[in-house]
């Protein structure tokens, strides 16, 4: 089967006073109908990779790639206007913090309805019904009240579920989730993930799950790309993440405190300059 998304040799550059900084350096991967995790520390280029796919990086940032193909069509060749038909409708993105991605002066209902009517021809009342349905799908109790509420009246977990509902309404083929649960509590985290998982399974979507939490990714995804300094250093099956070979991945895993194996001191990651020199591993299937 052809992959949904095919990224070849992606570079993201920013020119600074000290010269050009490469945030992402030659990353290649494909995404099928699967859950693909991207993990790494802050500054490893994982969020930039997600943003570059949607062409959300604005000048002076530079995005270069051989191609970023969605169903065989290169997104880099598209005009800004036709990109707008891709964003939201075919690929949508859930950002890290619901506090900053919802409009604080619009009711939640109005926001969901606006995003729905942007992509579909529907009357307001049809959109209202649809929005209610979506809120129910992300297990929000009392959706009628939530529709009339403003974002500041929502907790973090509810806000993130609302964002997911909003992103899923146009029924996209690919969902990019950039640290969707980092701002949430462990118990709520699980709920949000379950909802995302269910929806992805039911609709056969491709999911790119960007996170710094190795255990979460190992649990939740099918395949994992580990990024370091803008490159992919290792690709592995998520259930085999704990047997990962690369010293960087091992270092990250060992630096986590664990309840079942108490230690006096945690291992500290020793960085090897050779890791950032080594060529990027291909994440193609």
């Amino acid at each position, binding site marked *: 089967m052809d992959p949904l998304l095919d990224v070849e040799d992606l570079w993201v550059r920013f020119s600074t006073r000290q010269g050009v900084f490469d945030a992402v350096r030659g990353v290649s991967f494909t995404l099928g109908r699967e859950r693909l995790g991207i993990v790494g520390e802050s500054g490893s280029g994982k969020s930039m990779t997600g943003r570059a796919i949607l062409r959300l990086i604005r000048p002076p940032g530079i995005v270069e790639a051989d191609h970023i193909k969605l169903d065989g069509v290169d997104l880099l060749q598209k005009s800004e206007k036709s990109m707008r038909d891709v964003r939201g409708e075919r690929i949508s993105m859930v950002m890290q913090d619901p506090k900053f991605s919802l409009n604080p002066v619009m009711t939640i209902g109005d926001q969901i309805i606006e995003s729905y009517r942007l992509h579909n021809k529907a009357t307001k009342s049809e959109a209202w019904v649809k929005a209610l349905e979506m809120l129910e799908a992300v297990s929000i109790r009392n959706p009628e009240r939530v529709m009339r509420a403003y974002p500041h009246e929502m907790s973090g977990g509810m806000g993130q579920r609302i964002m997911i509902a909003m992103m899923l309404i146009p029924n996209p083929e690919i969902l990019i989730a950039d640290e969707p649960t980092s701002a949430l509590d462990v*118990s709520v985290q699980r709920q949000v993930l379950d909802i995302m998982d269910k929806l992805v399974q039911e609709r056969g979507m491709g999911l790119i799950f960007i996170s710094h939490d190795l255990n979460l990714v190992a649990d939740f995804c099918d395949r994992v790309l580990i990024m370091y300094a803008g490159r992919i250093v290792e690709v592995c099956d998520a259930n085999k993440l704990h047997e990962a070979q690369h010293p960087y991945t091992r270092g*990250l895993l060992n630096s986590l405190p664990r309840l079942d194996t108490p230690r006096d001191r*945690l291992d500290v990651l020793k960085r090897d300059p050779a890791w950032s020199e080594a060529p990027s591993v291909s994440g193609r299937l």
Partner: protein
Amino acid sequence: MKMLEINGLNVWFGSGRDRVDAVRNAAFEVGAGESFGLVGESGSGKSTILRAITGLAPSWSGTIAVAGRQIEIRRPKDFYKQVQMVFQDPYASLHPRHSVDAVLGETLQLHGFKDIDARVVRLLDDVGLGQKFRFRYPHQLSGGQRQRVAIARALAPEPELLLLDEPTSALDVSVQAEILNLLADLRQEHGLTYLMVSHDLSVVGHMCDRLAVMKDGEIVEIMDVVALRAMKATHPYSQHLLQASV
């Protein structure tokens, strides 16, 4: 002797029908040299307890005693020589236009130390930063380095009790390991007592000897780390929390 004794602590915000009871009837004690953890979801009141101890929460009732001495609403000056706090976000807790030297120097001066220069040097060495960081500004430091500066600032008055409010939740796991190791070393060297708030059970399991689980402003269970590791929580909520974090 107990380093910290808290009994019947209530903390509330607002009044009348806007009143929110953030902490209700909390009671626990922390021995000298012990490390005690507070865990729970956001909004469960764990940070509010720390803020009530340092005097950052406006209205509270009940008794708080540090090293056997009851705390009044107006805290004496030497209270802050005894108790210091490290905040969650190292990006927000340092003044962006004060150099590391100014941050530590000002703290030392406020606490009436005379040999400020030598003490700044020693504090930086203590937290593993060294001299080259002395005249840097926060934007020239990484998240882990900033948190080290925040810890150095808390150590400046030579406190006995350190209140840690999610000290590593804004950091990467590799940096988190460095900071947790540093905190463990400092506790040993200076004989500190820790009261640590975290939402991450494995961090608390690593750092603390005992912990209290909080829900909706109440402490539902106090257990020791051995019970935590054996997953032997008695209260259904703490069992639920344990399961969610494994």
